[in-house]
Structures are given as C-alpha cells and as structure tokens.
C-alpha cells in the first residue's frame, strides 16, 4: 500500500527508468555491439585490423573521402541557395511569393527514394529529357555521379537552411539595423556587419544538419551515385554481400560513419553554445515590395525552384499511369497496368507500410511525448541521462542503425530480425530525437503551475498529466504524429537493412523495382506512397487547425 501511494505521488522516477531501459536496449546496446564487432581481431581478441583493412582498401578509403567531399559540396550549395532565398522572402514582397509556402512540405515530405527515382526517369540514361536532347542530336552528359548527387541533394536539403535562416530573420530586431544606419553605416555595411553576424549561428547549425544528412543519405547516394563510391552505399553493399559472414569490416565502416556524424554534431553543439546571440525580441522589418525588374527575376527564380522541388511528385504520378516495359517508359501513352499490378496483384508492400507506419506513429509519438515530459517537467537525477540517450540516434545513419540492430538481435536472448517489431523499431528510433525536440519546445511553454493547480484540487499527478497536460499539448501531439507518419512511411535506409521476406514496404519495393529496372511498377508504388503521405500532411492540419512547421 505504501509503495503504491508513493508511486502515485511520484510515478516519474520509475517511468524515467523504464524509458532509459528501452533506450539502453534498443539504441545504446546495438551501438555497443557494433563497436565491439568493429574491434574484433581474427584470433577472437581485440584489434584494429578492421579499420586497418578499411584504410588499406582504396575503394573504401575513396568512399570516405568522397562522402566528406560530397557533404561539403552539398552543404555549400544549400547555404548558397537557402540563405539568399530566406533573406528575399523575409524582406521583400514579389508576385507569387506565397508559392514558397509549399516548399517545406514538398521537400521535407517527399521520400528521397521517390526524388531519386524521378530524377532518374527525367535525366537518367533513359530519361525523358535525356532522350529528348539526344533526339535533337545534342550531347547528353551523364547525370549519374557527382552531378546528379549534388544537384538532387541540394534540391532536397536546402529547405533546412532556408527554414532555419528564415526563422532567425523573423526573430531579428529591425531596430538594430536602424541603429547601424543612424550611426552612419551604409545599408550594405549594415547587412555585412550587423545582420550577418547574428544570422551566422543559424546558418552554421543548419549547415551541419545538412552535412550529417548527406553523410547518412542512402537512397539518393545509391540510386544516383553511379561510379562514385560512397560510405553509406559501400556499407550497405558489404552488409548485403556478407550477411552471416564476418561482420568486422561492415562494423568498421559503420563506426567511421558514426564518428563522422558525431564530429559534425559536436561542432554544432560547440557552435550553438559559443555563438549564441541573445536577441531581445523586437519587431522584424516589414517586407518591401520589389521594383519591377527585380520582382520579375525573383518570381521567375521562385517559380523555377518550386517547379524543380515539385517535379518528383509530377513525375511519379505521370510515371504511374504511363505504359512501361522494364526501364523503358513510353511517355505519352497512358496505361493502368502498373497501378493495377501494385494495388491488386502485389499490394503487400502497401499493407506492410500502412501497418508499420501506423504502429510506429502511435508508439513513437507516445514515447516522444512521455520522454520529453520526463525531461522537461519531471527532472530527477536520471533526467540528464535520458536527455543524452534520446539524441544518440542522431549520430547513427539509417544504414548503420539497421546493421547495428541486425548484429544485436539476429541471435542471442532477443531475436527480432524477421519480425514486424524490428521494422517498427527502426521507424521509432530514427524519429525519436525530432519528436522529443518538438514536444519539448511545446512543454517549455506550458507553465508547471497548471499541473500544481490540478494536483492541489485533488487530482493525482498521473491523472493530471492526462487531464491537463495532454489536452494543452493536443496540437503539438497531432503535429508530431503527422510528421512521424510521413517520415516513417518513407523510411528506407534502415528498413532496407533489417527487412526480410514478407516485410517489404513501399520504399523498399520502389528501391528494388528501380534496381531491377521496372520503373512503371516503382512509379505506381511511388504514387501510392506519396498519396498516403500528402493526404494527411495537407488535410489533417486544416481539419485540426494546427501548423505543422511552427514547431520546427
């Protein structure tokens, strides 16, 4: 009785412990197993032989160098595109500016596997535009390799820079600029010396996010990489070709990937802490209408950008209803064959995706809300540990997470490979840090006193959480759930590693069909996938009156 009473009064310690246990088993333990495996020597002892072999093999060494080069190049391009765009949008009005509102939705929510497939259908060897140019007798440079990688990744990732800098610009106190101008600095000098330094942290932080995303990228890297060896693709190939074999090499490559990403994240953390600018909230300057020719330039530019961002959506739907024979698309010739096949003959990937993503949405959202509540509102000695454990998944790319989970749960006391559980698990783990971050920012805005008010009126802490905190968080929870759904159902890099027969999802099906050259069927799954993402993302926020991206 006493124990029960104590638990009712302070149930949070036990819940914190439970969450920690879950994270320890499914996040920390797999990374530990992976690391230990990378250090295994031939004689069973510990050695650095795996790493030595990686560095001695030109292909792997090149892959590491390429990955860093690619990540740097894409980061530079996204900054070059995202920062000016954010500045123009924050400070100027021009025709069609409202179109830009679709950008975050379009680029963040479209699965990378579909982006890759679409560019391949348009600019690939047999692509629509490539063939058109070839028919005109023009030389067609190969899209595969550096060109395709940098081009497609820039278009996918610049949104992170754009949104981050836009938020910083909107929070910028315009009076600082006025102060600078009043002190005699020219507008150009003001932008350079007053505006830029305060934006620099936002740029740096988001640039490092892009860097880690490129390092971890699998779908685009593998579909458009061509002859350019990249870390994630090499790791995956090694895994596929030596399942059951010696895991030392794949573990070593995985650990190198973790080190790369973790380094970027540490630099980011250092940058955030060191360069934090405390801006007193002021009024952001109003947007100015642009004069005629400048307005025209921006309108054309923005239209082009929106068109490029939305191209994959168009391509995948047109492709789904186009006559297809293997990799050859008969553009202009309509057919329902691919759709029919995907929806009625081979619908298993669709059902699998629906089931896994729905389960992951419920479990992942609940876990994210609980964990952030424990971290923000119910601090105890264990909270910092939980706080740290939650961000660990950020350091592991999807491919590496998949390999770590397979190595940990293929044998031993807990066998999960081959079960639906492991699919849901990768979805939940990959999204958890983002879910917790969003829920936390909401929780910081809920005063603790409303909980105490409820408790003082005779309601236990747990019921207070349900009756008072959850209703206030409703909007944030729905946002988190919708984003969880959208990202889970498009997840490829980890699930393609852990899945086995009967567990194929839509992104995996698309990936495999593209690999075997069946672009029609891939498009059909793509159309189904995009529909299942866009309908909730576009419709639910309106119905529930929530703003999906306000919490970013």
């Amino acid at each position, binding site marked *: 009785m006493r124990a029960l009473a104590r638990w009712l009064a302070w149930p949070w310690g036990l819940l914190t412990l439970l969450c920690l246990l879950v994270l320890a088993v499914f996040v920390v333990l797999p990374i530990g197993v992976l690391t230990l495996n990378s250090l295994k020597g031939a004689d069973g002892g510990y050695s650095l032989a795996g790493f030595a072999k990686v560095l001695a093999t030109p292909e792997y060494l090149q892959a590491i160098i390429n990955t860093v080069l690619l990540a740097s190049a894409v980061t530079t391009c996204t900054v070059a595109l995202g920062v000016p765009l954010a500045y123009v949008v924050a400070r100027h009005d021009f025709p069609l500016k409202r179109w830009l509102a679709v950008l975050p939705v379009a680029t963040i929510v479209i699965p990378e596997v579909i982006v890759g497939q679409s560019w391949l259908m348009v600019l690939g060897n047999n692509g629509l535009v490539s063939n058109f140019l070839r028919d005109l007798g023009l030389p067609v440079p190969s899209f595969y390799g550096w060109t395709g990688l940098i081009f497609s990744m820039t278009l996918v990732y610049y949104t992170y820079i754009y949104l981050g800098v836009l938020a910083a610009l909107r929070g910028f106190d315009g009076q600082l600029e006025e102060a600078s101008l009043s002190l005699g600095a020219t507008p150009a000098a003001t932008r350079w010396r007053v505006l830029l330094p305060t934006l620099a942290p936002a740029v740096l932080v988001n640039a490092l996010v892009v860097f880690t995303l490129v390092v971890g990228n699998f779908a685009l890297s593998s579909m458009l990489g061509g002859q350019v060896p990249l870390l994630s693709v090499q790791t995956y190939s090694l895994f596929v070709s030596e399942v059951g074999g010696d895991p030392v090499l794949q573990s070593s490559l995985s650990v190198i990937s973790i080190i790369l990403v973790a380094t970027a994240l540490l630099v980011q953390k250092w940058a955030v802490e060191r360069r934090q600018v405390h801006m007193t909230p002021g009024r952001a300057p109003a947007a100015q209408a642009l004069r005629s020719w400048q307005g025209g330039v921006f309108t054309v530019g923005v239209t082009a950008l929106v068109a490029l961002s939305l191209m994959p959506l168009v391509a995948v739907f047109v492709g789904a209803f186009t006559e297809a024979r293997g990799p050859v698309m008969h553009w202009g010739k309509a057919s329902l064959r691919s759709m029919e096949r995907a929806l009625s003959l081979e619908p298993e990937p669709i059902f699998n995706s629906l089931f896994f993503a729905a389960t992951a949405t419920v479990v992942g959202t609940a876990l994210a809300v609980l964990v952030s509540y424990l971290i923000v509102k119910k601090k105890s000695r264990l909270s910092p540990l939980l706080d740290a454990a939650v961000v660990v998944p950020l350091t592991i790319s999807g491919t590496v997470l998949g390999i770590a989970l397979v190595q940990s749960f293929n044998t031993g006391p807990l066998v999960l490979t081959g079960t639906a559980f492991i699919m849901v698990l990768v979805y939940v783990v990959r999204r958890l840090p983002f879910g917790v971050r969003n829920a936390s920012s909401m929780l910081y805005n809920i005063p603790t006193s409303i909980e105490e008010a*409820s*408790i*003082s009126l*005779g309601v236990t802490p747990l019921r207070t959480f349900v009756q008072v905190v959850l209703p206030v968080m409703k909007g944030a929870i729905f946002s988190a759930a919708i984003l969880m759904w959208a990202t889970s159902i498009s997840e490829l890099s980890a699930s393609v590693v852990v899945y086995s027969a009967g567990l194929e999802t839509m992104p995996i099906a698309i990936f495999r069909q593209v690999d075997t050259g069946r672009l029609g069927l891939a498009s059909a799954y793509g159309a189904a996938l995009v529909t299942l993402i866009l309908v909730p993302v576009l419709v639910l926020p309106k119905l529930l009156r929530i703003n999906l991206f306000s919490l970013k």
Partner: protein
Amino acid sequence: MTRITIDQLSKRFDKQTVLQGLSLVIEEGSFFTLLGPSGCGKTTLLRCIAGFNVPDAGRILFDGDAVTSVPAYERNIGMVFQDYALFPDKTVFDNVAYGLRARKRPAEELRQRTEEALAQVGLQALAARFPAQLSGGQRQRVALARAMVIKPRVLLMDEPLSNLDAKLRLAMRDMILELQRATRITTVFVTHDQEEALALSDQIAVMQEGRVAQQGTPQALYATPQWAYVADFIGSANLLPVTVAAPGRVALAGLQLDVDTGSLAAGSSGQLVLRPEALRLKSGGAQGAGGNTLGARVLSRQYLGAKTSYRVALDAGPELRVEDTGAAAHAVGEAVQLGVDTASRVVAA
C-alpha cells in the same frame, strides 16, 4: 477551519538551505501573511504547506493531523498561483468545476456550487469563456473561485496580485478580504509587498533567510519592530545608529533623545527607527534647541500632492527622509528642526 502548525521545518535545495528549523502557528480562520524579500523562503514554506515541496525535517500539522507526508492531492487545499494557472483548454465554468469533478460531486450539486462560486467573484456572465478571452483581473477571480469552491481546509495564495496593475490590485484586495472574512477559511498569503500585507492580514510573519524574524499583527509590527530588518521592511524607516544612555534615553552624536528603548540595556548599541511620516519638520532654530529635536538642513524636496517628501542632512552627518503634510514649504538649503516622537523605537541591529 483549520489551525496550521509548522514545527521545526527545514528544507535544502542542493547546497542552499532555504528553511532553517522554522516554526509557526497559524490560527484557524485567520488571514496569515508570509512577508519577505525574494529568496527569504516564503514561497518554499507555502509550497511545503501545499505539499509540492517535501521538507527535509520537521512536521506540518493541519489541526491535529500530521500532513507532512500526505501528497498534495489529498490535503484538500485551495491554491491561487501568481500566474493564475488556469487550464487554457477549459472554459471558466470547467476551470471552477474541476476540483468538484475530482471529488465526484453529483451533477446538480456541481452546477449549483460552481455557479455560486462564480457569482461570488462576479463572473456568472463569463462562464462559457476560455481563459485567453479574459482580462488579467478576471483570470485572477476565476483562479480564486476555483480554489474556494472546493471549500478547502486552507487557502494558499502565492503572490496572487503581483501581475495586476495598481488599480486592479486594490479591487482584488477588497474581494479577497471580503471572501476570506465571509468564509473564514484559514488563509496563507505570500507577498513581498508590505502594503498588501498590512492591508490584508490578521497576522504577519516577516521572514529573513529561512527564519521568521518577527511575527505579529500589522499594528504591532509597524509600531514595535524588534529588529532593524523588520523596521526597514514594514513601512519605510530611517535607521540611525545610537547608543543606549539609560532606559528611555539614547545618545546620538553628542545629543541625547528621549525615546522607547524597549528592553535594551544601558550601554548597548542599537538602531533608532524614525518613520519619515512621524518626524515633525519645523523651520529654523539652532542645533539641539531642546524639546527632543535634531538640527538638520534641507537637501532636496519632492512635492507629491498630499505630502511633500524631503531629504535632509542631520548636522551630525547622516541623511534622513522626511514626509511632511504641513502647508509650509521648506526651501533647499534651509536649516530646520526635526521633532522626534518619544515613542520612537530603538531596536537591536
């Protein structure tokens, strides 16, 4: 009606001791104020009474019941928070009815009691509104009704008026006082505003560094402070270092004044408390012209309407503030005499 006994209460946060073996008795039905600057432990003590803070040592009793380890939700308390703490997703009615629902009152009784409580604070017309649609004063009234409707054993208020503007604060003060006098629920009120404390309380405990410096009625604290700290905190006071020459007589820079030396022994040093409004200001006269006066010179003058506030320098050195309601204006630089009341207190430093 409940009598609250605080017995040897101690509380530390990390390495900071916030309450140091504090003892208090709060009589049943009284309006009791914990007064002190921020960091003196008054809010921590209130939260211990509420059950949100668990003391490290000591006991809290409601009448004869030890409640020290009873969780907050079983103490039957009403609490009014500084930031109102209304549930933003619930209407005014549902906010007020929340505690009755938790107590599973029948629907009819719940409706009736909620409406009564809303009527008491004059908010019947706004029952269907949400907190965001109310003004600050209205929110505070909802918070008050929500805490009172459950007929709590004790009502706890944590700086409930500090977020209101000056005019509303006066109106809310009247409402709180009226409700408390009508219901006679034992009320513990936390504030750093001495005027609020004087206006509302039956008893005030002036707190200093986790202890009660002095407890008493507002009149007693104002008229007979025992410590310089209390004299300074309740009302404003000029404090002059003096030496007790004999019972009822102090020495100050060669002068002797007749004042109330309390229990201080001859030869001990103390602080003479001179209230700005209790000093009488007269023109002219030489230093030590007799009649319990001090010679001074006007340094500056601020006209405040009902009174005039002066800063003066004693011939002996220290500066004092004097509030004068007389018609005569004294010019800056003018030599004046300050008449000292023989009831002025000398307190231990």
